[in-house]
């Protein structure tokens, strides 16, 4: 029989790698049929909510829940005293510290959980919360980590021995009672020596302010203890459902097989939903106590004030170069504000995440990094807000240092970058702070970006604008923001990456059904990234069945293979690789089946798009659909029936996506209003799985970057009150403030990833923040600005202009 369909049509039919396949998730979301945690309703379900501390630092003298228990609809109130006998009044954090589940004698930040009121509905719970009487004794508040390191005030008495000595923390010796750890990378002395003898040296302090991932859906869960069967089911907004199951098992003593954790649809995560929060523990306990399912959903204020802040790094960079601009050394010191408990979500061996990627995209021979973690009276967290662990901080530091150095050298910042880029032929490149960059072609990307935006033309226009401003012809100035970033994602190799001792591999399990469709389950969980769409595409190309015939399922620990979840752009690099590898196992068995059916030797058939063909005789073939059926209806000697595979993928290295961004901005110096005239984003994420989704990720990541750079912050006053606890004060850009972005790409596949993909979800945030900030700072460079801290909201920009005498 002649094959009527061309090879090209067969490829298209798969909707595999490289296809802008429409998303399979969208049907339910556009019709209001998503299933988010707050949509879950169970018979007799109760609602729990917290009494929270109004103080940032206080001793708790008493908690009286009696009046609350009289409130109609209130069934129970949990306090630390109730949790103590179970050993659940404290819980371990992801960072090797421990955290109070409910205030145990004191509170360390405003909004801290003091008691958990369980009621028939939300209104009754709110009434109950009002009725709980808590007596506080205020203590001195520390909101500045530099001061905390000098203060006599002890925040964590539990971490000071009775004789006053300081036991080691999870990451080694501690220098002061409010000190958590010191973490170093690189070589201190050689770096200091180069800096001391360099032609040119600049030092710059910068504060990367505290902010918050603030997904549109807050965190929440439903816990249901089935006492008859001894099974606990926990639905929740978990970016890492398996890790949550293990944590729940470890702290509750319930055996892991008796716990089922389910992440339903998740309304955005961005790092907010990685951690384990007191609400989860209290819901579980409340369900055990009451015998009923218990739901806990944060409101927006709880969310902004208590779960998972990001950043809050006080950084000092020192960089040296030759007169010609060749960088010779970089030193970076960080004082990291971790809040009242160290609950950073980082791999165990990296208490400052991958901050040691701070040499960026540049060939810097000598470098040293030192990070000190500090306790303060702020909320715990320290998550990677749309970035790999602390990579946004690292990239911001280096991309600002480059600009500051350019000013010192009186050089063009684009040129300074170019002469310092790691060259294509240097990859794999071993960086001074330890990482081995897998691949890159920075010069090509940079040149393409600068050419596309007509960089020289923009600089000429800017010079004219400066002249016009000085001549009094305009009150508007123009900034050209540049950034070139290298991300480090896909954590990570089990040899150096684990969380709570769990290796950071990921997994995929595939079952091919007899009629040639399939289901694949993964250890990750989508929060909007479109996994159900893209993982099916990876698989389609690997196994030759159409993506439309492949169901992807994630998030149910009873059915999905173990994995460490979705954050730090690890899904494509790790689970995506597992998917490809599992697909290859399917293909290997399919090859044997095909050879049997075609009555040739295994090696005499080869894979071609959606079939195995006899080498040299393309008219003799068996499609994957036929092979799938044969796997279930033929007794093939030496082969088990069925067609299934599972792969656990331990990545040999991280992946290193990179990109070149340019932002053109006009600023009205009298109002501080910014107008983003153009934003060009070139991303190289290696092999591109679904260009439509990549573009969407870039738009979203850039918008979150715009927010952080231009206004979004979690601010505290001196008493430790959160000043930005609602969406009135916490800046989330609307459609009105956001520009249209131009996206572009180059493709430098990862050499060690099975399909060459690197991950993209977080790159635009990592590269975007410095780009927006650099645009503001560049506009003021001709008027004397060297560095001004973010966020650059209108008021602060106005102040910048004022300070530079531009209002005189």
């Amino acid at each position: 029989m002649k094959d009527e369909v061309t090879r090209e049509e067969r490829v298209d039919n798969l909707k595999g790698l490289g296809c802008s396949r429409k998303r399979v998730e969208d049907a339910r979301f556009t019709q209001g049929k998503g299933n988010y945690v707050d949509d879950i309703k169970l018979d007799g379900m109760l609602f729990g909510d917290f009494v929270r501390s109004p103080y940032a630092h206080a001793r708790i003298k008493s908690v009286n829940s009696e009046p609350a228990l009289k409130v109609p609809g209130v069934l129970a109130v949990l306090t630390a005293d109730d949790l103590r006998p179970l050993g659940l009044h404290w819980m371990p954090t992801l960072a090797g510290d421990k955290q109070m589940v409910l205030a145990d004698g004191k509170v360390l930040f405003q909004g801290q959980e003091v008691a958990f009121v369980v009621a028939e509905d939300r209104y009754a719970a709110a009434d109950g919360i009002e009725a709980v009487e808590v007596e506080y004794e205020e203590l001195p508040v520390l909101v500045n980590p530099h001061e905390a390191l000098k203060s006599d005030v002890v925040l964590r008495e539990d971490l000071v021995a009775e004789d006053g000595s300081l036991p080691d923390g999870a990451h080694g010796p501690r220098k002061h009672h409010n000190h958590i750890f010191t973490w170093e990378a690189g070589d201190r002395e050689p770096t200091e020596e180069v800096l001391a003898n360099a032609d040119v040296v600049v030092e710059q302090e910068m504060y990367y302010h505290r902010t918050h991932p603030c997904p549109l859906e807050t965190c929440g869960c439903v816990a249901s203890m089935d006492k008859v069967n001894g099974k606990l089911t926990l639905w929740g907004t978990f970016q890492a459902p398996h890790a949550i199951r293990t944590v729940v098992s470890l702290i509750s003593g319930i055996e892991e097989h008796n716990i089922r954790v389910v992440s339903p649809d998740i309304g955005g995560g961005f790092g907010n939903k990685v951690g384990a929060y007191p609400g989860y523990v209290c819901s579980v306990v409340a369900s055990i106590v009451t015998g009923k399912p218990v739901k806990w959903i944060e409101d927006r204020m709880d969310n902004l004030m208590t779960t998972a802040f990001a950043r809050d790094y006080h950084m000092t960079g020192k960089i040296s170069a030759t007169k010609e601009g060749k960088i010779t050394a970089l030193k970076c010191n960080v004082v990291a504000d971790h809040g009242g408990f160290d609950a950073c979500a980082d791999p165990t061996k990296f208490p400052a995440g991958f901050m040691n990627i701070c040499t960026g995209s540049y060939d810097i021979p000598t470098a040293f990094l030192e990070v000190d973690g500090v306790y303060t009276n702020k909320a715990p967290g320290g998550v990677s807000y749309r970035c790999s662990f602390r990579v946004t901080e690292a990239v911001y530091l280096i991309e600002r240092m480059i600009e500051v150095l350019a000013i010192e050298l009186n050089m063009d910042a684009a040129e300074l970058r170019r002469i310092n880029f790691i060259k294509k032929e240097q990859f794999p490149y071993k960086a001074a702070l330890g990482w081995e960059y897998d691949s890159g072609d920075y010069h090509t990307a940079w040149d393409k970006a600068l050419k596309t935006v007509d960089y020289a033309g923009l600089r000429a226009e800017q010079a004219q604008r400066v002249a016009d401003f000085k001549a009094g012809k305009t009150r508007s100035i123009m900034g050209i923001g540049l950034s070139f970033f290298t991300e480090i994602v896909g954590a990570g190799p089990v040899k150096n990456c684990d969380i709570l001792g769990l290796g950071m591999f990921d997994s995929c399990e595939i079952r091919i059904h007899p009629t040639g469709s399939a289901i694949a389950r993964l250890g990750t969980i989508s929060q909007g990234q479109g996994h159900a769409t893209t993982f099916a595409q990876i698989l389609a190309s690997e196994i030759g069945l159409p993506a439309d015939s492949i169901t992807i399922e994630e998030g149910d620990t009873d059915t999905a293979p173990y994995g460490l979840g979705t954050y730090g752009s690890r899904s494509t690099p790790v689970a995506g690789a597992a998917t490809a590898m599992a697909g290859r196992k399917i293909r290997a068995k399919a090859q044997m089946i095909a050879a049997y059916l075609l009555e040739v030797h295994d090696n005499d058939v080869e894979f071609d798009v959606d079939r195995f063909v006899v080498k040299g005789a393309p008219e003799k073939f068996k499609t994957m659909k036929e092979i799938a059926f044969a796997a279930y209806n033929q007794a093939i000697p030496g082969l088990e029936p069925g067609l299934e595979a599972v792969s656990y993928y331990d990545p040999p290295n991280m992946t290193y996506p990179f990109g070149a961004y340019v932002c053109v901005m006009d600023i009205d110096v009298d109002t501080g209003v910014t107008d983003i005239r153009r934003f060009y984003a070139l991303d190289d994420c290696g092999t591109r799985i679904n260009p439509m989704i990549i573009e969407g990720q870039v738009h979203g990541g850039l918008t979150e970057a715009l927010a952080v750079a231009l206004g979004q912050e979690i601010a505290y006053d001196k008493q430790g009150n959160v000043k930005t606890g609602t969406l009135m004060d916490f800046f989330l850009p609307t459609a009105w403030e956001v520009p249209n972005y131009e996206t572009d790409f180059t493709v430098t596949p990862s050499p060690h990833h099975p399909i060459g993909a690197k991950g993209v979800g977080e790159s635009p945030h990592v590269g975007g923040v410095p780009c927006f900030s650099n645009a503001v700072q560049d506009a003021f460079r001709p008027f004397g600005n060297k560095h001004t801290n973010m966020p650059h909201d209108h008021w602060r920009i106005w102040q910048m202009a004022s300070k530079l005498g531009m209002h005189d």
Partner: protein
Amino acid sequence: MSKKMHVKLKVNGKEEEFLAEPRELLIYTLRERLNITGPHIGCETSHCGACTVTIDGKSVKSCTMFAVQAEGSEITTIEGIGNPDDLHPLQTAFKEHHGLQCGYCTPGMITRATKLLEETPNPTEEEIRFGMAGNLCRCTGYQNIVKSIQAAAAEMNAAKEAAE
């Protein structure tokens, strides 16, 4: 707790009658009492628009209104905008142009956009951005939402022309 009040209203064409405390927010009524979970909660302070519904022809953030205030009104939620066999052009366009990611803002977005296109059948990009500014999205950066609405507008206008 104060005295319950009698409320009668119509949601997606269906009459509903119940007793509610005066403090009961409409979003709560929809989601908890009537099991209409398309409208979501993102803030409960009128900022995010995830809870947007149409009440008597106007876009309303249902976290901003008490159920008793909606007495006698006609409410449309995302569930009443289209169905699997007869999708609204906006529902198709959002999928076609990747106007959503996590989907949490989407019901509110689409519900708001139906009104926007009724008020302004041929909106400019600026009108769309302004008209949708009450609805926050954390995922998409809005570019593809704008595109989706433009595409739906074109589609609806073409259909109208063909019908005339």
